[in-house]
């Protein structure tokens, strides 16, 4: 993995104290808890964690796609403007135009009753001055760009007439229609066959290079992170527990949860041993344990972990970790190194 791009001095997106809460029958639930990270121009940031760790909600909170009764607090600075507080009308000009999002399941994210071509063109209509003919031409270009064959014929086809991989390509074409500068990708390969997954990942990386975008890649798949991301942020129970460059995090995890995650990834070429798994299950967001949320599952845990919430601090250059015992975790080494 490359180091940070040279223009990395000012982040394109700066998330601070992002907190998303829902009022449910089980009480007030904090799905995203004081999350902060930066995305630099041209970089791919991986947001990693188990299901329910708050990574998708984080992504949706950035785009303000949280449904009532969810409440989003904190700030999301996009080129100096705060997306959290900006009026809907202004936000609409950023959504789809400057920041685009792709979803996990193209079958449910594409409107089943509208032709794919129309779903591309309505993005163009909202954000570009192109006329009807211009939009059709651009839609064809986009279909070609994402590798959908026979683009002209397929413009009038409906999502159900596409295969899974082609549907995901169509969704990417829709999202990228207006040349966004940041792509938020919510597990875009999870619903696909392994062979197709690889094609889609390559496509996203290619398009990132061609269009000069930044990408935030939400995934639970560390293999995907290793193959695509420059930096990663690990989430657990709605909080970020560790961030850093991918190579350095893989080589020397500094949070016990990250170490556990790395240990649970099967590797080819390695000696055939039992996969490590993390004991227990992630806590319910309505009943997060006191202290470090990971402490009941953690083999490094001591008394302090059960009472004091560890802050997310810089533990080595360009590395943040929220662990009281990051030194001991680091000393234990990486399960994949």
């Amino acid at each position: 993995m490359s180091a940070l791009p040279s223009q990395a001095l000012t982040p394109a997106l700066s998330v601070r104290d992002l907190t998303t809460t829902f009022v449910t029958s089980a009480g007030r639930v904090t799905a995203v808890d004081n999350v902060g990270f930066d995305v630099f121009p041209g970089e791919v940031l991986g947001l990693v964690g188990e299901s329910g760790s708050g990574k998708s909600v984080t992504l949706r909170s950035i785009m303000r796609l949280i449904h009532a009764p969810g409440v989003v607090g904190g700030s999301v600075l996009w080129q100096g403007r705060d997306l959290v507080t900006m009026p809907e009308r202004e936000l609409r000009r950023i959504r789809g135009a400057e920041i685009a999002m792709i979803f996990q399941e193209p079958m449910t994210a594409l409107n089943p009753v509208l032709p794919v071509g129309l779903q591309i063109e309505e993005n163009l209509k909202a954000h570009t001055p192109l006329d009807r003919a211009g939009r059709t031409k651009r839609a064809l270009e986009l279909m070609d760009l994402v590798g959908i064959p026979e683009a002209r014929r397929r413009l009038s086809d409906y999502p159900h007439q596409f295969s899974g991989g082609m549907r995901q390509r169509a969704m990417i074409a829709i999202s990228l229609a207006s040349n966004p500068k940041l792509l938020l990708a919510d597990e875009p390969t999870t619903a696909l066959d392994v062979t197709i997954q690889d094609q889609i990942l390559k496509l996203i990386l290619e398009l990132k290079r061609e269009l000069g975008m930044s990408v935030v890649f939400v995934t639970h798949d560390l293999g995907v992170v290793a193959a695509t991301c420059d930096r990663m942020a690990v989430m657990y129970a709605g909080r970020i527990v560790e961030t850093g460059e991918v190579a350095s995090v893989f080589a020397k995890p500094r949070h016990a949860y990250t170490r556990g995650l790395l240990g649970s990834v099967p590797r080819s070429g390695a000696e055939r041993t039992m996969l490590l798994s993390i004991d227990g299950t992630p806590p319910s967001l309505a009943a997060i344990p006191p202290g470090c949320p990971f402490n009941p599952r953690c083999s490094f845990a001591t008394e302090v972990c059960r009472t004091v919430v560890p802050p997310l601090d810089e533990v080595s250059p360009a590395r943040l970790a929220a662990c009281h015992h990051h030194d001991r975790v680091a000393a234990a080494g990486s399960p994949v190194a």
Partner: protein
Amino acid sequence: MSLLPYIFRRILQLIPTLVFILVVVFVLVRLLPGDPASALIGDRALDADVQRINHELGLDQPLPVQFLYFLKQVATGDLGNSLSLKAPVIDIVAQRLPVTILLTTMAAVIALLFAVPLAFLAALRQDGVVDTVIRGVFQVGLSMPVFYLGLVLLTVLAAGLHWFPVGGYGETFPDRVYHLFLPALTLALSLAAVLMRNLRSAIIGVLGAEYVDFARAKGLKSRLILIRHVLRNALISTVTLFGLSVGTLLGGAVITETVFAVPGAGRLMIDSIYGRDYPMVQGLTLALAVLVSLTFLLTDIVQAWLDPRVAR
């Protein structure tokens, strides 16, 4: 994707339906109690007269023969003569059915004009004051019998305020629409209640769909999202319900036409059943059944247009 092959297939499927309708109509009329001859000449008819009339009407023939005779008649557009009105059934149907079609169409339009905006209002403010009030009012509308509602509207808007005529049917088209407004409104309200409730929950379901979030993430205007992405998907189930409700609407038209003295097919049906006017009942039932089948056809086409997955 063209809808034409689907429409063609759907029209072909109409043929067995029509044959079935013919059989049912023929059998049902012969299951009605009483016989037309007695109805025609009264209770003190002589047996000989009854036999003569039955013979003239072909009612002494075996049922299969009567059925073939009936098919031949239908094929030539001859539905016999009305026993009580002494005129060809086909002419009377042609005169009365358009009234009922206009009435139910107006009712359907009024119902949609109520249901769609109110369903949106209620769904967008789910469980709020507006939602609760709208649903409450419509719950009352739904539980009120059509004839009672008709009488209330008649008393207040026609007899009291003189905004509308008390009954009857006009000469020119605008005049007819004016005369039919109150009966159509009466008929519309219970349908509107059903459609509104259905559409409201459909909209709430669609608002939570991922493609609506995706449309938002594309930066589309709210109104465009509501109409193109939400309404179109939500209408799919409501259109089905709407088609199924047309039968109920025609049933309601029978009562409404009686209350408002509208000279439509519904009232004619009641009169003919009481008068044991076999050919008339037969002709009307046939016409109404065909009308309902055509409405179902239309519903299916609209649905296939809304949802391309249907026409596969």
